[in-house]
C-alpha cells in the first residue's frame, strides 16, 4: 500500500513538473527576447557513470562561455560574437539576441569535481561524473 502510494505521488509530481515545463516553454521566447538572452537547444544524456549535458551554441567563441555551479543548479552563459538581428519579426524587432543562458537542476548524485567541458563546431559538451554508490553490508 505504502509503495503504491509513493509511486503514485512520484508520478503526480513528475506530471506537475512536466506541465510547468510545458507552460514555461510556451512563454520562453517572449521572456528571453526582452533580456537579450535565449535558452539554447540542449540535451541531457545519462551515460551510466556520468551525465552528459550537450548545448548548441552557434555564433559563440569558446572564450565567452561561462559554466557556473551553485547548489544544485548548473548555469551556462555565452555571448554571441555578434548579435542576432531578427528585424523583420515583430516579436524580436525591438531587441537583439546577444547570447544564451541555460539553467539546469542537477540530480543530487552528480559531482562537479572531475567535470570536463569541450567545445567543438558550436556544440558544448559538459561531462559530469556521478558520485560513487557505496554498498554497506548488513551483518
Amino acid at each position, binding site marked *: 500500500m505504502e509503495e503504491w502510494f509513493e509511486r503514485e505521488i512520484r508520478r503526480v509530481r513528475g506530471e506537475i513538473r512536466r506541465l510547468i515545463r510545458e507552460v514555461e*516553454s510556451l512563454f520562453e*521566447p517572449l521572456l528571453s527576447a526582452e533580456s537579450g538572452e*535565449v535558452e*539554447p*537547444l540542449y*540535451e541531457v544524456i545519462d551515460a551510466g557513470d556520468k551525465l552528459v549535458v550537450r548545448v*548548441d551554441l*552557434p*555564433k559563440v567563441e569558446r572564450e565567452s562561455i561561462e559554466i557556473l555551479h551553485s547548489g544544485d543548479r548548473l548555469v551556462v552563459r555565452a555571448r*554571441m560574437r555578434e548579435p*542576432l538581428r*531578427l528585424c523583420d519579426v515583430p516579436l524580436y524587432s525591438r531587441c537583439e*539576441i546577444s547570447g544564451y543562458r541555460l539553467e539546469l537542476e542537477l540530480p543530487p548524485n552528480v559531482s562537479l569535481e572531475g567535470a570536463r567541458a569541450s567545445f*567543438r*563546431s*558550436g*556544440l558544448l559538451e559538459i561531462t559530469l561524473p556521478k558520485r560513487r554508490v557505496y554498498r554497506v553490508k548488513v551483518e
Partner: protein
Amino acid sequence: MRDWVFRELKEVRRARYLIVGVPDAGLVGLIAATHLIRQVDTELVAYVDSSYLPPVIMYHGGRPYPVMRVHYHSDGGAGYLVLVSEVAMSASGIHSFAQRLVEWGQAKGVERIIMLGGVPSPQRINLEKPGVYAAGVTQADAEFLERAGISIFKEGFVSGPYAAILKECFARSMGGVALLAESFLNYPDPGAAAAVLTALSQVTGLKVDVKPLMEQEEEIRARLRETMRRTMEAMREAGKAYEYAVPAMYV
C-alpha cells in the same frame, strides 16, 4: 472538406520530380528545400492547407505566405515541384497527408517523389561530411540510386511523414526515394542539408550550389532554434525514436 487541400495559385505544369522537405530530424528537409528554392529559379504555384497544420499564417514581404507551399522549377523541361513546410504537422494527420500528396503528385505526372531529410546519428559530431543513405520503393528506384552511386538504406526503420509517403508510394507502385543524411536529431543541421542537396544533384542532375549554406551554417542554426524546439515536440508524437531501434527480424 478533405483532410488536406492543395490550392493551386496558377496552372501547375507537369513535373518529373516532386521534392519534399518538411521539418524533421535536424530540420534537414526544411533547410535543404528552402535553400533549393532560393538557389534555383522557382515560382510559387500552390499551397497546402489542412486542419492538421497549426493555425498560423506567415507573412513575407508584407503579404501572406503559406507555411506549406509548392514551388515549380522547369530546369530545361524536366520539371521539379518542390514542397516545403515551415511547420511540423500533427502526427494524426501524417497518413492522410501522404495519401493526398501522392495522389496530387500522380495527377501532375510526377514519376518520382524525392524526400530530403536526416537520419539521426549519435556520431554526427565526429563527422565532417555526413553520409547519405537512400530508402527507395520500387526496383526502378534502386536502379536510379545505384546509377548515382548513393548508398541504399538496407536495414532499420524510417519514421514520421517520410515513412508514410514511402508506404503510400509502395501501395501505388509509384517511384519514391528518401535521401537521408546522417544528422543531429535535435539541433538544426545545415551540414546534413548540404549533403542531401549534393546527393539530389547526383541523382537528378539538378545543380545546387551548397557553398552559401555552409558559409551561413551558424547563422541558420541560431535562427532556427525555436523551429527546432517546436519540431521536436511533433517528432516525439510521430515515433521518431524508432529510428534508433533495431528491427526484431535481425535479432
